[in-house]
């Protein structure tokens, strides 16, 4: 029995950690490159989830197989991340890059509030359920416990794919090299012909797309309802801070840690579920203020 609970805890932690990673890695990428802590990042998670659930419900209304939902999730995530994220960068963030940090925080917080209200206007306050993609991939049984393959195989695979894909992108492609160069030294990058504005734009829509992908993939596992963006931004901030802001690989480990911490609390100390991620963050930051993997020296991603 206790072995089963242990396994359940681990599986839950991995599934949840994978989703949190997708969101947190976008937050940390944007921070690492642009030095902006985007509070509205959580809105993209929520928007991705709403967009995915709505599209999914349209599919089932027309009796179309839920297998089409998986590619549609990606389409929804990219559409939300690129359009809403692109507009936000182009028309709002671009004006405040040179401003003080508190102002940047206030502005992104204001955008978060606005997007939260937009969601309520568009989707109302009732929860949405579109869970077919969750069961479609079947179950795996581990020490007698059936668990959905979507959560214990698919989501972790997506997280790993994003982790290694992002590292490959930053290290091996020209666009990635430009991001790395601008992160390290914006002026020196400009002086060799790099358009830092374009790089910021690209980075930001990659970040917001990752958040909305997290939301889209989370939608079958949960009820989509107001407030989910707020919960996620705080959680992914905890992950990013625990790892060290700007640390991509570190975010994966911190997400796993926090996912496991949360699931242990669910099973062993349910009343602590909500605070465990922040407890982990606080403990880590007390001993390592720059985060588990953070460096105090040169800026890098």
């Amino acid at each position, binding site marked *: 029995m206790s072995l089963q609970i242990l396994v359940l805890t681990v599986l839950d932690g991995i599934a949840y950690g994978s989703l949190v990673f997708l969101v947190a890695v976008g937050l940390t990428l944007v921070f690492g490159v642009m030095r902006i802590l985007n509070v509205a990042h959580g809105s993209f998670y929520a928007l991705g989830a709403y967009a995915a659930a709505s599209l999914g419900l349209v599919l089932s209304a027309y009796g179309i197989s839920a297998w089409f939902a998986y590619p549609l999730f990606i389409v929804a995530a990219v559409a939300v991340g690129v359009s809403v994220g692109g507009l936000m960068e182009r028309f709002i963030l671009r004006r405040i890059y040179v401003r003080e940090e508190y102002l940047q925080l206030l502005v992104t917080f204001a955008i978060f509030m606005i997007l939260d209200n937009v969601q309520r206007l568009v989707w109302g306050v009732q929860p949405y359920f579109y869970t077919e993609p969750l069961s479609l991939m079947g179950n795996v049984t581990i020490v007698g416990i059936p668990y959905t393959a979507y959560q214990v195989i698919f989501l972790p695979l997506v997280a790993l794919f994003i982790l290694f894909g992002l590292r490959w992108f930053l290290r091996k492609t020209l666009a990635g*090299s430009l991001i*790395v160069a601008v992160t390290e030294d914006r002026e020196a*990058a400009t002086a060799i*012909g790099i358009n830092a504005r374009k790089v910021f734009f690209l980075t930001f829509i990659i970040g917001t797309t990752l958040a909305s992908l997290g939301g889209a993939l989370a939608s079958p596992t949960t009820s989509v309802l107001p407030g989910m963006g707020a919960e996620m931004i705080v959680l992914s901030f905890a992950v990013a801070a625990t790892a060290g802001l700007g640390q991509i690989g570190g975010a994966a480990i911190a997400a796993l840690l926090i996912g496991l911490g949360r699931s242990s609390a669910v099973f062993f100390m349910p009343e602590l579920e909500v605070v465990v991620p922040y407890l982990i963050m606080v403990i880590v930051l007390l001993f390592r203020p720059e985060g588990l993997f953070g460096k105090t020296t040169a800026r890098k991603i």
Partner: protein
Amino acid sequence: MLELKDLSVSIARIPILRNVSFEVQEGETIAFVGRNGAGKTTTLRAIMGLVTAQGSILLNGQAVDHVQAHERPALGIGYAPEDRRLFSAFTVEENILLPARVAQLTQDETNRRLERVYGILPELKEMAKRPAGSVSGGQGKMVALGRGLMLGTHLLLLDEPFQGLAPVLANRYAEALRALRDTDRSLSVIITESNPGLLKNFASRVITIERGEIESVEDVSKVEA
């Protein structure tokens, strides 16, 4: 080739450059000297578009004031900043190649330019695969020169290249610069220096800046010849 007309720069409302005007001819090397804080770096940054400046900058007769900073290197301007500013995440060769990749030069053109850089600075070839963060300060100056040369086909801006170089390296750097001028006679170069003596036998003219204003322009080409 390059003409600065009444260039003025203020940072936080403090005037840093005041009506700086001078010309650089094609193939000419200018020693741009002045004490610490005189405004040498600011002048070079203004040419690169990295600070907002009043006045006008002309390149081959064309005003570049409205050309954005990131578009200026493609006009054939290479810049080796004072403090090197290499990208430590990349190797030495990646640092040198990055400007060419950004400018989307063809592979042939990139190779040709890389060979030119290695021809003038063969030591760069030996450290090509080393992380740029691991080279010494002096070697870093060479790398910054090599990187600047990739796009600097018309104009090269070198900000205090000799500062902090051990004598052996400084000689090596000077030798490389001479080789560069011998292979490319149309290249214009501005070298800044706080110690004017160092550049006497390099430059055709010495332009002195003091507290943000041009103090003197001295023709020394006859001395050299």
